[in-house]
């Protein structure tokens, strides 16, 4: 057990609360920096992909986990970012400019998609975003002269300072940089008034309003920040995948993004990262254990979706707070080690209340 005596208010505000944290996060960064030395090119691409999804997860977590707005159209923001980046890269824009443009354009689309959020909540918002996502997908497919339509679009590699950032360690470090920056932005927002306003909207719109929080402003702000994250991640994604087509950004993809934050643990920043790791690692793990399965099962066509669905169900069933929840328990277990009591984490009966009145 660790007791921290606080003597100044700043201590609550600081990024790092104590030396233990400093040590572990430091270690994590060092490990992340060291990965290219050990990883195969394939693994490195996967790691980059993971970092890219982490950025999306951060954004979606801000929206779904902290502002309480459901988005079933997040792939659309990714698509806007990815296509903007591709088109601008082809037009020869320098990377940092084009990536900024991708984020910005996605944010603008985010504001537009966020507009229904001003009138509808919960489930309805989910459907509205789903509808919007589908329409964006269709628009991309139709705007053939810009996006290449259903035939797809090849994305040129990033050229930065005369160097090629197409793949390998260079691209990985680029993604890492963006992911760390995204994490910092998210944490900073959450420890300041904006983040608290988001949480207020999530918990009670009516009293958020009487505290002077302008619902429309903050909801659209949350949508646009979240979309900007997805847009920037989409831009990186475009370079990692190098081939864009509208069917990479469907409703199913949006649902998978949402799945990612739920499995990771809704309402926590760590959870976002865990979710991204899960989403990318699971197919790898399934492939890795395939040789161990009976061949009939290993060759079964529906294996991957089945396992995906099963993991999602098991997570919600046994660990509603997702991977992050499990992580917390593990930590508590070790912190308390000899004093750990069995009933401590027993789940209570829970009772659902109507969302229609919020």
């Amino acid at each position: 057990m660790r007791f921290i005596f606080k003597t100044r208010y700043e201590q609550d505000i600081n990024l790092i609360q104590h030396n233990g944290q400093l040590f572990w996060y430091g270690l994590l960064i060092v490990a992340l920096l060291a990965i290219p030395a050990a990883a195969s090119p394939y693994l490195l691409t996967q790691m980059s992909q993971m970092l890219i999804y982490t950025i999306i997860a951060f954004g979606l977590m801000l929206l779904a986990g902290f502002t309480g707005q459901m988005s079933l159209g997040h792939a659309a923001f990714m698509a806007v970012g990815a296509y903007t980046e591709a088109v601008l890269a082809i037009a020869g824009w320098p990377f940092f400019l084009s990536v900024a443009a991708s984020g910005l354009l996605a944010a603008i689309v985010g504001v537009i998609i966020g507009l229904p959020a001003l009138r509808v909540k919960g489930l309805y918002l989910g459907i509205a975003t789903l509808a919007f996502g589908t329409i964006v997908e269709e628009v991309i497919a139709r705007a053939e002269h810009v996006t290449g339509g259903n035939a797809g679009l090849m994305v040129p590699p990033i050229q930065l300072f005369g160097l090629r950032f197409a793949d390998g360690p260079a691209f990985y470090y680029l993604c890492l940089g963006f992911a760390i920056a995204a994490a910092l932005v998210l944490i900073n927002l959450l420890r300041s008034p904006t983040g608290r306003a988001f949480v207020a909207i999530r918990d009670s719109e009516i009293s958020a309003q009487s505290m002077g929080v302008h619902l429309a402003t903050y909801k659209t702000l949350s949508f646009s920040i979240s979309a900007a994250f997805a847009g920037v991640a989409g831009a990186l994604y475009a370079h990692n995948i190098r081939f864009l087509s509208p069917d990479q950004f469907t409703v199913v993809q949006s649902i998978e993004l949402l799945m990612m934050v739920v499995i990771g643990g809704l309402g926590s920043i760590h959870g976002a990262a865990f979710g991204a790791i899960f989403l990318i690692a699971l197919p790898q793990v399934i492939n890795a254990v395939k040789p161990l399965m009976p061949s009939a099962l290993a060759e079964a066509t529906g294996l991957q979706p089945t396992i995906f669905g099963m993991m999602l169900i098991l997570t919600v069933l046994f660990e509603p707070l997702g991977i992050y929840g499990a992580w917390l328990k593990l930590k508590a277990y070790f912190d308390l080690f000899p004093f750990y009591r069995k009933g401590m984490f027993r789940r209570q009966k829970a009772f659902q209340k109507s969302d229609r009145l919020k």
Partner: protein
Amino acid sequence: MTAPVLTEPILTLANVEAAYGAVKAIRGVSLSVAKGAIVTVLGANGAGKTTILKTISGILDPQKGAITFKGEPIDRRDPAEIVRRGLSHSPEGREVFPLLSVRNNLLMGAFTRSDRDEIARDLELVESYFPILKERADQEAGLLSGGQQQMLAISRALMSRPDLLLLDEPSLGLSPKLTQDIFSIVKRVNRERGVTILLVEQNAAMALETADFGYILEHGRIVMEDSCAKLRDKDDVKEFYLGLKDVGVRGHRRWKKKKMWR
């Protein structure tokens, strides 16, 4: 007041402990409610009164201890099943069905019953207690005022014709006049229909006047139990629960006196 004939207990709690996650809310509570009696539990904010009631009606599973209702154990049962055994609970926070009409709310109170005529008669009865419920029969319950919802919650609990009625702060948010009415209704229901009542109240004066037997709860423990007549005589009860000092509870002192349970 004449003490009613105290028969065997209809409800007993033996050494019950309940917790919210890692927070223990009640610790080793033992109490018993005699059949036909009105029993009250008093205690400060956060003492665990609501928790006791929730544990009895199965909303919360006790970690330890046993709860017996009509001679059978009811701990760790499905709440709906406990209700069907003849227990009814008017919860803290009203908990009406906001989008159902007032009438349907009341009918849901009688969900476990199938005697149509009797239900109709009970409906008339509760509507005579609180005429507003009849006036607003078709209004959505969620749009009632706070006090009206409270009346609805109590009436709804009565509609199941329980053997044991748990009332959690029934007077919360009611006007002084209705508060008096509520307690007389409680008494009437108890006398006329033989319903046993377990009452949790902040209005200690009223509670002690209405009930036969009382428990005092502090920090999740029962610190005192006695007949209400005797409880009303204790100095600490007078001071902390009845406010019977010349000038308020603490006079003009802003600091708090420690309670010393004797």
